[in-house]
């Protein structure tokens, strides 16, 4: 399913926290490419640098050295504000704790990103409603996050991440707070979105369920890519 369109290209990425003797080498020398339509998972022991790498790809954090090219743009050359606009327009994020805005309804949370992008109301409504239907969220539009189960909240969070058709969706430990059945259904849903809309997903996880869905598994160890393998469950 993945074309050869390169979305992300990392070269010699190093990320240190602190400096000098006490510097923590979170990422040592990472080369990685992500292609349009990928459905990839990063795995590895706790502290190996998965979240750090995800944050760097998402433009939330800066590299110590090396380069990140996102859709042809070199992150090192962009200001924080420009990075923020790329996150707004081209990247979707899903978090472990859902992080929905508690004062907005499910519908409004999903619509929020479209508002940021200044999409006209008719299109906003169409996009959100279609997505909610597709994601089995119909009927929950007017609920506040606290009136939803964890799995439902995470579905809304996924809807928020994909509603604007971003180039890349980054998902950090998104199944950590839900049971395995819910995890299964979340992944099924995302796989469906991947297939129907060709949305690119990059996960970081400890969860074997996620791994089962992945078409590519990236194994990290001590801040280095240990192995990149095409998953068994290939389509």
């Amino acid at each position: 399913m993945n074309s050869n369109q390169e979305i992300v290209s990392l070269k010699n990425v190093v990320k240190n926290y602190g400096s000098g003797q006490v510097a923590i080498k979170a990422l040592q020398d990472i080369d990685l490419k992500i292609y349009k339509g990928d459905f990839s998972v990063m795995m590895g022991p706790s502290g190996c640098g998965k979240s750090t790498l995800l944050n760097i790809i998402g433009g939330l954090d800066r590299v110590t050295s090396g380069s990140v090219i996102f859709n042809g743009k070199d992150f090192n050359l962009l200001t924080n504000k420009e990075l923020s606009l790329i996150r707004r327009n081209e990247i979707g994020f899903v978090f472990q704790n859902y992080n929905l805005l508690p004062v907005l309804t499910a519908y409004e949370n999903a619509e929020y990103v479209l508002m940021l992008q200044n999409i006209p109301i008719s299109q906003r409504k169409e996009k959100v409603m279609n997505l909610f239907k597709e994601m089995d969220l119909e009927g929950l539009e007017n609920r506040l996050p606290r009136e939803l189960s964890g799995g439902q909240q995470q579905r809304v969070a996924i809807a928020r991440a994909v509603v604007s058709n971003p180039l890349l969706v980054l998902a950090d430990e998104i199944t950590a707070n839900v049971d395995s059945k819910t995890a299964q259904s979340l992944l099924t849903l995302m796989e469906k979105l991947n297939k129907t809309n060709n949305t690119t997903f990059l996960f970081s996880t400890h969860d074997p369920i996620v791994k089962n869905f992945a078409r590519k598994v990236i194994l990290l160890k001590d801040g280095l890519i240990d192995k990149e393998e095409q998953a068994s469950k290939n389509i």
Partner: protein
Amino acid sequence: MSAKLLLLIIKISWLSLWRNKRRTFISLFSIIIGTGIPIFFVCIAWGFYAGLIDDVARLMSGHITYEHKDYRNSPSNDLWVGDTIKINNTLTNNDNILFTKQIVNLQGVAHTAKGSVGISLMGIEPKKEIAISFLPENIIEGKYLSKVDERLVVVGEKLAKNLNIAIGKKFVFTTNDIKGELTEELFRVKGIFKTGSKEIDGHLIQSNIAIARKVAGLSNDEISQLGIIVKNPDEHEVLIDELQKSLAKNNGIFLSWQKIMPDVATTIRMDRTAITFFMIMLVVIVLFTMFSTILMSTLERKREFASLLAIGTQQIELKVQIFFETIFFGLIGCPLGALVGVGVAKWTEGYDMLNVVGGKSEDMSVGGFGMDTVITPLFSAPLIMQICFFFFLAVQLLSFFPIHLISKISITDELRSA
């Protein structure tokens, strides 16, 4: 930022305000206290001053006084102003002016068998005085003057005691006429008044203006002072300028009550400064508690802000959100505070302060004049709005620090600390 997005942000601000209802109510309460108490005090205090100024102006020589330009420095009997019938007629036709009163003042000495006391004789028109001044109401024995009374006077209670005279009793008044000649006149007491002011009750007597003129040697057209009672005592500066230009003759000058009674003016000014200072202290304390709640509510939501920033919300958009939260606080709290302040002031109207502070009304005096201790609040809309607006601005300033914190948020740190 599009208008739609701004609306959404404002909506988020509004909804965020009610997330922690208890804290929001505490903040609102602080704002209500912070605006309400100063407004209450100012309404009461300014009401007292306005009442005092009006009383004194009506008792003495008006909000504006026309007199000889040197009279202020040494109020001697030979400093008078002329042509006053014409001036008076023009003044009565002025819409800003309620009343005028013609006064002849004579400094002199009163003698009885008991002794002699330096006094001030105030020659007035009884009918006008009854309409204007509160002195006629304060006759405690005998009666107030009427136009036909020739050598009858009303005297202060203390003076009557000091001279040992009662109603119907006589005393001799010695003074200089305008040529400097010593003259004497025999007066009989018609009434005794008590104003509560030691100065006035101990040294003032009032007679008909005609007899005072005769003693002084003044013509019908000549007086010591022309008192002007205006409709709006707060805005008399322009009027004074106008009158000075159009009406003042030779040595005459129009002066405000502040110039005529500098003691009263100074005391009121000092009192107002003290109250203002006290209020600012209070406001600072209230703002401090506000500040901590606003700061707390921001710090508490750091992770939420971080996740919004992560998905592409601009810092400015979050800053606007926080700013509007305090705007809402101000918009709800300040008018409510004003309402409470005005309401409580209104509720205390007519209450005698002596019931609270104790003591005698004689002891309450400003610049030598007795003060009315009954609460008569003054509701000045501009002043109330000014206090409201000041507090509103102060609350808005509080949001600057939390807003500043937004630019310090590290998205990755906050998301990790989940």
